[in-house]
Each structure stands twice: as structure tokens, then as C-alpha cells.
């Protein structure tokens, strides 16, 4: 396998001819062999970023794209050694499965025997043995995406780029193929950029995740950092569910008054609101509870159930309870929230700054 390469974007922005700025100038470094996920809502500039890396799109003047030490900004995609996998497969309908996979190898003018050998090899990697002679329109969506994957890795590219490759598949298949792509990326140890709007996919696949918002990177970090220490309310909200509790008063010794009771959070004093995840809230007997509320709805999620608890604030508190417990609407519930699971995006930022200073 070709040794993998790092990718560096320097001040890469993109404003389209119609004046719309899809991407504000951004800097991004992706280490060799790393999988970076670009995550964000539709229209936030993920595809544009990916296309700038691939060479299908050029950054605005001043932007630079580097693969390793080499500046590839002026290189067209066909000279960049990138493999691409698209949402709608983009397989050549005029060719068989094997011919699709061999397409890039023929361009490299490899001898026929080697081409055949490599096609067989990658078809085995994506579990498509025996499908070589099939027509493309005789394949299911999942099989098509496997062919696309095989076609991209057959040429042994330096970089693999994915644009929402699983978005067109149904849930079960999506999970399976996601796991397989993850395994493949680890096996190949190839630099990969993976675009998705699905946070579960992002956390499962990414070594790091760049959460994007309106043409900017809102936060860049490992899945754990992004999930547990989101740098903004937007990120906290986009990755999983989050509760925002308004602080309506404070008492001595870091006691914060919120709707429905009092919480202990000395590290968060002085902030107007505090955040916590539904799964971090504990359900306890009402007589030892820090907060009390009234169950107004229960949403069954399978492995857990999500309770909506009215504590007197404008939005109900989301609390995860074991799936088999039975909660009636109107029932009073007691809750506690340990201080260590309470956070505030701005606080996460300053913590990170402190850490960086310490490490630096």
C-alpha cells in the first residue's frame, strides 16, 4: 500500500459565483493515516471542504492545499491520487462490476494479470466475491456502495474521501457497512476524510471530528472531547441530546438554584446556565433528590427510555431511565446530577486553554 500522507488546508475558503460564501477561510491539518469526520447539518460546507481537498473545487485566492510537504492546490483531481466514494455511488453503468473496479488500474497501465489479481483482492476485501460479471443495475444499494469502495481502494490512493456514503441506505445496512468501512480504514491505515450529518456515524468512525456550522469549523476534537466537552451550545446540541438548565440564583459553597431544586456545581458558579446530558442524570428517591419534577412524557427508545420531566422551567428536562421501568405520566420523580457531569461550553473552552498551556 502507498504510504499515507498528511493533508493541510491553509486559509481555504470558497465563495461561489452567486456571492454565497459556502466556506469561510479555514485551517485544518489531518495527520497521515488519520480518519477525520466532517460533521454538520446540511448546507454547512462539508461537501465543499471535501471537494477542495479532492481537487474538484479550488479554494478562493490565498487558500493552499498540501498533501504532505507537497502543494497540490493547482493540481486537478486526476493527478492527486485520491479515492472518492459518493452518496449515490457514481458507478459506471456501462461497465460490469469488475470493469468498474479495474477502471483506475487500466489507467495506471498495469499488466492484465496484475489487474485481475488486484480486482479479486479488493472484491474479497469488501465481501463481493463472485460478483465480477454482474451489471451495476443488478446490484442492491449496499452492494453498489461496496463496489464503489472497492473501486476507490483498488488504485491504492494516498487519501480516501467519502461524501455521505451511507445516507442512501436503510438503517440496518448502514450500521453494517459503517462497521466494515471502519475496519477497512484501520486495516489500510490510510488518511481519510469522511463527510456525514449523522453523529453516530461520526463518533464510530472518526479519530477526530470537525463539527461544522455555517461554513466554519465550530469544534475540532476527538469524539470524546466533542461529546463531553462541547465548545458551544450548537455543538452540544448537534451531538446527542443535551439539557440546558437556567441558573436562577446561587448560594454559598457553589450551590446553584435551578428550576425544581438546587445543584452542586462549584466549577460553574457565575454562569447563567448549565448543561448536562440526559444519560448523566440519576433517578433517586424523592426524599434524597436534588431536583424534583413531574413526568409529562416517556419516549421508548429500545435500549432506554427518555423521560420528559417538568421542573417548572420553560423546556422539560430530558432524563434517560432504564428501559424496563414503568413511569406514569404525572408521577413525581426525584433526580440528582453529580457535579462532574455538569458543564458549560464556555467553561469547556477555558479548560481546554488551560490544558493546552499546560501541555505546550
Amino acid at each position, binding site marked *: 500500500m502507498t504510504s499515507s500522507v498528511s493533508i493541510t488546508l491553509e486559509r481555504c475558503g470558497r465563495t461561489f459565483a452567486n456571492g454565497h460564501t459556502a466556506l469561510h477561510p479555514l485551517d485544518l491539518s489531518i495527520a497521515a493515516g488519520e480518519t477525520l469526520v466532517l460533521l454538520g447539518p446540511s448546507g454547512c460546507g462539508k461537501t465543499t471542504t471535501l471537494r477542495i481537498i479532492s481537487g474538484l473545487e479550488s479554494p478562493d485566492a490565498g487558500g493552499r492545499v498540501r498533501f504532505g510537504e507537497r502543494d497540490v492546490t493547482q493540481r486537478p483531481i*486526476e493527478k492527486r491520487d485520491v*479515492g472518492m466514494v459518493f452518496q*449515490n455511488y*457514481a458507478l*459506471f*453503468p*456501462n461497465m460490469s462490476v469488475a470493469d468498474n473496479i479495474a*477502471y483506475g488500474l487500466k489507467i495506471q497501465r498495469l499488466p492484465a494479470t496484475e489487474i485481475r489479481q488486484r480486482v479479486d483482492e479488493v472484491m474479497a476485501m469488501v465481501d463481493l466475491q463472485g460478483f465480477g460479471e454482474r451489471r451495476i443495475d443488478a446490484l442492491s444499494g449496499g452492494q453498489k456502495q461496496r463496489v464503489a469502495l472497492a473501486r*476507490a481502494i483498488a488504485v491504492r490512493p494516498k487519501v480516501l474521501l467519502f461524501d455521505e456514503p451511507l445516507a442512501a441506505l436503510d438503517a440496518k445496512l448502514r450500521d453494517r457497512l459503517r462497521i466494515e468501512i471502519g475496519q477497512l480504514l484501520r486495516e489500510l491505515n490510510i488518511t481519510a476524510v469522511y463527510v456525514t450529518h449523522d453523529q453516530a456515524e461520526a463518533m464510530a468512525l472518526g479519530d477526530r471530528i470537525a463539527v461544522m456550522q455555517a461554513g466554519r469549523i465550530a469544534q475540532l476534537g476527538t469524539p470524546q472531547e466533542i461529546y463531553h466537552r462541547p465548545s458551544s451550545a450548537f455543538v452540544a446540541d448537534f451531538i446527542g441530546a443535551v439539557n440546558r438548565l437556567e441558573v436562577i440564583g446561587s448560594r454559598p459553597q457553589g450551590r446553584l438554584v435551578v428550576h425544581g431544586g438546587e445543584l452542586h456545581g462549584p466549577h460553574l458558579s457565575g454562569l447563567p446556565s448549565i448543561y448536562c446530558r440526559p444519560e448523566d442524570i440519576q433517578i433517586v428517591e424523592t426524599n434524597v433528590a436534588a431536583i424534583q419534577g413531574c413526568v409529562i412524557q416517556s419516549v421508548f427508545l429500545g435500549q432506554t427510555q427518555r423521560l420528559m420531566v417538568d421542573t417548572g422551567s420553560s423546556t422539560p428536562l430530558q432524563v434517560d431511565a432504564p428501559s424496563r421501568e414503568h413511569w406514569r405520566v404525572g408521577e413525581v420523580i426525584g433526580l440528582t446530577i453529580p457535579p462532574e457531569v455538569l458543564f458549560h461550553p464556555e467553561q469547556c473552552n477555558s479548560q481546554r486553554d488551560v490544558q493546552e498551556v499546560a501541555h505546550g
Partner: protein
Amino acid sequence: MTTRIRFLLQLGFTLLVCLFMIVPVVMSALAGLTENYFVGLKSGLTLRWVNDVWQLYADTIWLSIRLALACLTVTVLLGVPAAYGLLRSRRRWANAIEEALLLPVAVPGLATALALLLAYGHYREFRDSWLFILVGHVLFTLPFMIRPVLSVMRTARLPQLEEAAASLGAGFWRRFLTVVVPNCMSGILAGALMVVTLSIGEFNITWMLHTPLTKTLPVGLADSYASMRLEIGSAYTLIFLVMIVPLLVAIQWAGRLTVQHH
């Protein structure tokens, strides 16, 4: 009961209309095969007239075939890249150009021919050669190649396929030949049959542009109607039908293929 009657009435009417249209064709074909049309079928069937036509007009038939094939080659070579260019250009420009291309179809052929004569008629060599007629035919048939190719291109997700090909290392020409052209084959086929049929049957432009040495089949046909026995004209028609009907059938078949494909 009433539905049955209605069905029978409809069937009867349809058959009547068909007869109205088919009878003249059959009569004409038969006229070309009867010994003496005025005596009728009882004078006997013969291939004499067909043979006479061949003696007199074989050149026109060959010229028409040559013109049709040349016209096909030129329209494919011009039309497929042109359609691709239109696909890639801005919508507004593309529409304007597409409409401009239809002008030679909308304008009477005689006017197109006159314009060609005025513009290039004084280049004697060119004017006397069959290539002069070819230019007229290409002008007239080009939109019939571009349109089906463009419509197939528009539905074939070509930009996506090309991006995939480019990521695998394919440069422009390779992409064009291995991805673009094969994926609009059904459009090229439909256009090709249309172009050949129109070129073989074209009369207006050709009649204005032809010289005694560059007569095509339809021009010869007019000639024979005006100056020959009715049986010879009919036999000539028969030959024309034998050439054109398989093409028309093929057009239908290609049309269905295109629809199935998408």
C-alpha cells in the same frame, strides 16, 4: 352489450382509417410490380420496372446512401461534443443555442438552400460536388442528433460519473470516450437513425442544391414521376420504401430502448 357495440364501432373506424392510409401505399407498390398498370393485375407481375429503375437511377441510390452515411458521421462527430458542450454551459446560453440549431428545421428547406447557394455557390468545385449537398443535410439533421443525445446526457448523471472517473486518474479525453460517450449511446443511436432517415428522404434542400451529376434518390424520384412511365415511378417508390421502412422500425425500437434505459 352496449360496450361491445361501442368496441366494434371503434374497431371498425380504426380499420377504416388504416385502410385509407395503407391502400395508396400498397397500390403504389403493386403498380411498380405490375406489367401494365392500366390493364391491372391481370396483366401479370414483373420485376422489369424495378430493374429499369436500377439501370436508370442506381447512381442516385448510391449517392443517397453515401450522403446518409457521411451525414451520420459528421453529425456524430459534431453533435455529440456539441451536446456535451451544451450540457456543460450555462442553461440560458444552452437554450438559446439549442433553439438556433432548430432554425434550419423550421425555415423552409428552399430558403436554407438558397442561402447556401448565395454564400458558397461561387466556389465552383465545392458547389458541383456532393459535399455541397452534405452541408445542407448536416445543417438540417444536426439538431436531430444533438437533442436526443443531450436529453440522455441530462438524465445520466454525467457530472457525477465524470468526477468519479477523474478521481481514478482519467483525464478529459479518456473520460469523454469511456464514460460520456458510452453512457449516452442510446441517445446517439436514436439520433443516428433519425439522421439517416431524414437524410435519405430529404428533398427540399437537395432539390435546390443538386446538379445533374449529384442527384439523390428523392430528386430522382421526382424526376421519374415527371418524365417516366407510372410503373417506373412506382417501382422507384418501392425501392425507397424498402430502404426507409427498416430504418423507421429501428427508430421505434431504439426509442423504446432509450425509455427502458432510464
